[in-house]
């Protein structure tokens, strides 16, 4: 009875729960687990178990299911941290994060603010900006490779209108991260616009109008009302955008025909993991690199939460 009372309190059951409601509770518990069983099995096998498995693998020299793996401690981690190619992949990934997230957020916020009023064609604009987001990455990377073509590409032709000389976008390593960032901003912009637009439309307009009547100009309204009120949306967008940009792979892989850019100069962390695991077949080593990626993403996310603590205002 004592146990029942404690359990009831913990489970938020009503005071004076009878034997009959307890029976219903246990019946519900079994039914709930029946409902959850398929999802739980998939999550367990393909999301939770591999987190543990990746770590144990990263401490071995595993490379094939047929060869018994040996425990090597933190050897893989030591080797990765001394590999210049790994650091190049970290640098390129960082360039990609910095080259896509802030620009996407700024452009999207601007577009969302323009769209956040009664204007004609609003549905059309929203659709036009969003369509790239649903395009097939492989197909659209082929299209961009064609646009970036140094001889017959649309980009060089259009830059010619402004007297800008043709560049070898896909052949010179200095442009590799640039081309990937352009594609990523183009593809992801509309999604961010839609999220910002929702955030803006969800705001209380009375407050802004009151401030305007009191003589505040548009800049002041934006700085002191719109921006702080939008901060939860901005925070959500930043967190998810940063996590996603750490995973950059497919666009690079397709645009450069399966190679990490010309002279391998555009390698990213996921590309590094991919090459180690599936070209070199050092899967223990690749797991260690994956774990380093995991911790980097985690550290950046924790930092963002810490940074946002005082700057995000939930009403």
């Amino acid at each position: 009875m004592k146990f029942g009372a404690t359990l009831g309190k913990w489970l938020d059951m009503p005071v004076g729960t009878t034997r009959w409601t307890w029976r219903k509770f246990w019946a519900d518990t079994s039914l709930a687990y029946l409902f959850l069983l398929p999802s739980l099995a998939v999550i367990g096998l393909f999301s939770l178990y591999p987190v543990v498995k990746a770590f144990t693998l990263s401490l071995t020299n595993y490379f094939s299911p047929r060869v018994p793996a040996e425990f090597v401690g933190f050897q893989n981690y030591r080797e990765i941290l001394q590999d210049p190619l790994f650091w190049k992949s970290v640098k390129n990934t960082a360039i990609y994060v910095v080259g896509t997230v802030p620009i996407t957020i700024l452009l999207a916020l601007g577009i969302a603010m323009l769209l956040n009023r009664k204007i004609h064609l609003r549905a059309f604009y929203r659709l036009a900006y969003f369509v790239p987001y649903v395009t097939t990455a492989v197909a659209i990377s082929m299209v961009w490779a064609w646009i970036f073509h140094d001889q017959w590409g649309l980009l060089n032709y259009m830059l010619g209108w402004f007297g800008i000389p043709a560049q070898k976008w896909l052949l010179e390593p200095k442009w590799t991260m640039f081309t990937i960032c352009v594609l990523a901003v183009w593809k992801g912009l509309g999604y961010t616009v839609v999220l910002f637009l929702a955030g803006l439309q969800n705001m209380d307009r009375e407050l802004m109008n009151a401030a305007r009547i009191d003589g505040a100009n548009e800049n002041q309204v934006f700085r002191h009302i719109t921006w702080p009120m939008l901060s939860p949306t901005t925070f959500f967008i930043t967190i998810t955008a940063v996590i996603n940009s750490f995973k950059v792979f497919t666009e690079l892989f397709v645009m450069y025909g399966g190679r990490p850019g010309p002279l391998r100069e555009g390698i990213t962390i996921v590309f590094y993991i991919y090459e180690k695991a599936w070209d070199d077949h050092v899967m223990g080593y690749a797991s260690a690199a994956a774990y380093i990626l995991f911790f980097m993403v985690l550290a950046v996310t924790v930092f963002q939460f810490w940074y946002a603590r005082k700057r995000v205002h939930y009403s």
Partner: protein
Amino acid sequence: MQENAVAGSPVWRSVKAVLTHVLLMFGAIIMILPLYWMVATSLKTYPETLAYPPKFIPSIPQFINYVDAWYSQTHFARYFYNSFYVTIVTMVTEVIMTIFASYAFARMKFLGKNILFGLFLSTMMIPGEVLLVPNFITITKLNWYNTYAAMIVPFTVSVFAIFLLRQHFLQIPFELQEAAYLDGAGHTRFLFQIMLPLSRPPIATIALLKFIGSWNAFLWPLLVTQSAELRTVPIGLMSLMQDEGLKYHIWMASATLAMIPVLVVFLAAQKQFLESVAKSGLKG
């Protein structure tokens, strides 16, 4: 009077409106241009693709390019079949599993609920790419390498979808549940007869998200399949790019073909879809 104080004089207002449209239209053209360029190139002749300055409108649209693209790869029909098969099975399975899981989390009291829900949510923080190697090993151990199951099963659960549908289920009045209970309906009947008919929009969104994600998937299907009989459209496209050399009109026709299913599905449901995406951000 008050309107003017807020929005400025009528002249300034119309100048602003025109400027807004100019900016937005310029942006929209840039967003659409790559897709337009893809379709335009796909309808050109080979010499026309190499013309300089490039032609924005093909002189005579070469619809035959699409036939050529379809037959350039002997397996293209097979790739489409595989993509549809994997996408639809993944989508249907996911929707069914999501309905049950979301209902349990939204409407049932059970032992360990908060712990389990926390566990589910925590998986959203793990970048999927980190799990590629262990999951690949699991697939080989299950003897699923080079099977449909390898491409389908790992993607039948989306915690994001469960979260989305749970939010929706939570908004349906609890009085309905009590009334149904007094009428003798248990959880299962309540779920199917009352909750589901009230939840068509979020379920459609979840299905659409999965359709797009699954159709566009590249890295995982590439890793777990080997034979051409099992490969999906994106992977077939990739190999086309490596085979075909410089025939850009055929590439672009193939790229267009590959994208038609997602674009059609998206355009058919775009209004509903954009609203749900917008809502997902507000709750985050």
